[in-house]
């Protein structure tokens, strides 16, 4: 009884620490930027228009960017966690399995060919809609390949890697034919950036993230049991194949939404789940929250650094996250005595 309580309290404690850290970084993210605004003034202008310029900056930039960093970080963290778990592979993430490459190709299709794959999409949403379509298509392709060999994790992982190469080369092909300005637009999209964030976009990500999290939380014990191996899970009465298909579908949706608005932000989806797992353990009832918060924290930290590294300019966040994340991650991997997978 008390043993379980102890394990439980330790987990809750870590989740709370993450939550506080995430909040602090989100607030810091709000107050950093080319224009010096105090936290007080920002909070006042969220509620009503105290100063017209500040109000515009807060509502058009600071607030959507901050929320987007939290939402996208959380979505990538959760997507990476579930990919790693159901594919039983520590290297699985939206980036390594080619979902990001698919999104990048979709964006390039919009920039280079001006093609609108989803009909009736407003002009400003053509790029994200294309990116979403191709990211989701990538996931479906991976599932299709997996289906041939009964959804074993090796088939899905190798299929994903093959698809990643395919989309990378098709992307390169489009880049080769693109004009100079278009090429620049593609490259900037691929860098990954939060500056295109709007409140509407962060609301979309928030909604998908919330729905998927709830669906996953209902299955948290089954997902945790998957870590014991397919055969063991089967003998515990879990239909491993169906569970894998179901979760892969949720994750496809989540990943596609996460990558389509911001471009390619590598690393967060791979590493946030590992950091959370090292600190929390496999129990998905907590690890789901842990990965979301850890992803949100890492991306918020990245967003802050991207704004302060060159005063007055905003560096693409995709470049920053790896730079600040790698040392921290390596520290955890090398220093820790316990196994991390």
């Amino acid at each position, binding site marked *: 009884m008390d043993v379980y309580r102890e394990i439980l309290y330790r987990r809750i404690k870590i989740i709370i620490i993450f939550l506080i850290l995430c909040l602090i970084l989100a607030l810091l993210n709000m107050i950093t930027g080319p224009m010096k605004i105090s936290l007080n003034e920002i909070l006042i202008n969220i509620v009503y228009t105290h100063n017209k310029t500040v109000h515009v900056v807060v509502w058009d930039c600071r607030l959507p960017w901050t929320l987007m960093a939290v939402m996208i970080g959380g979505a990538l963290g959760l997507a990476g966690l579930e990919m790693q778990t159901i594919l039983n592979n520590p290297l699985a993430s939206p980036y390594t399995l080619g979902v990001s490459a698919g999104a990048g190709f979709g964006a390039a299709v919009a920039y280079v060919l001006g093609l609108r794959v989803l009909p009736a999409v407003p002009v400003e949403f053509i790029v994200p809609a294309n990116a979403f379509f191709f990211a989701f298509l990538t996931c479906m392709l991976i599932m299709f390949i997996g289906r041939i060999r009964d959804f074993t994790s090796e088939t899905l992982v190798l299929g994903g890697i093959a698809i990643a190469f395919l989309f990378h080369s098709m992307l390169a092909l489009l880049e080769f034919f693109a004009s100079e300005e278009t090429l620049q637009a593609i490259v900037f999209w691929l860098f990954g950036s939060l500056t295109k964030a709007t409140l509407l976009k962060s609301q979309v990500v928030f909604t998908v993230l919330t729905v998927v999290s709830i669906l996953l939380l209902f299955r948290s*014990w089954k997902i945790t049991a998957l870590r014991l191996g397919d055969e063991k899970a089967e003998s515990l009465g879990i239909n491993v194949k169906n569970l894998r298909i179901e979760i892969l579908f949720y994750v496809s949706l989540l990943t596609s939404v996460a990558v389509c608005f911001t471009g390619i932000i590598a690393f967060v989806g791979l590493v946030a789940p590992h950091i959370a797992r090292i600190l929390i353990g496999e129990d998905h009832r907590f690890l789901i929250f842990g990965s979301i918060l850890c992803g949100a924290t890492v991306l918020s930290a990245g967003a802050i650094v991207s704004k302060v590294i060159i005063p007055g300019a905003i560096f693409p966040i995709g470049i920053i996250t790896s730079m600040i994340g790698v040392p921290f991650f390596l520290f955890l991997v090398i220093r820790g005595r316990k196994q991390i997978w």
Partner: protein
Amino acid sequence: MVVTIKADGLSIYYGNRCVLSNVSFVAKPGEVTVVIGPNGAGKTTLLKTLAGIIPPNSGDVFFNNNRLSRMRREYISKFVSYLPQENVVPGILTVFEVVLLGRVPHLTWKLSEEDIRITTKTMEELGIKVHAKKYANQLSGGERQVVLVAQALVREPEVLLLDEPVSNLDIRNKLEILDLIKNITEEKKVTTLIVLHDLNLAAKYADELIVLSGGKVYAKGNPHKVLNESIIQSVYGIEAEIVKYNGGSVVIPLRSVMHNLQSSYRLA
């Protein structure tokens, strides 16, 4: 509920290779049925079939009078507990969690007091409560095996299928774990099937012995009748002496009569 298992003409093919051929036997509640046989005889496949993981190509298994082939896996898992041979616990899971996961069909988001109580009790009975907070992958191979046995027992199954549950343990732990399994089998009228390699442990703990060879049931029955020199020679290809000791049988292996490895070694 007590469950009598009746295997009726089970045959399993992996591609063209016949792994089990027309296997029939009855395992009764409250008895330990031990399956022995050389490597590749089909012991693991038999247990997986009984656990509902591998569907038989022909024949069927009856739990009381219900056909296994007509049961859903979730239903089977409610009363059958299967411990695979592999002794790895991947992932960062505490011993408490590994044992608890044995009850996955029952678990809800907020753990019930019942689940926590049974998990703690099982850990106590197997002497691993001291490890509860440690990560399972930090334990020694033997300790981990005990944890996995606990995981199989925590579900309070009516049918217990154990594939070499003591292979990594020292002699004292072997005896303790098998004693515990035997007691639980008798007290709770569990139907227990254990795959063992050690013929002496098989003789000591089996109420009923099944000898598998080349996918067929070579012999079955009371261990003291089944375990004799000629069966051991034809199934394992070794000469052995059986000594009756204290009402039981002790198998003393003497020499191989096949010399498979030696002759190929000389040729090389």
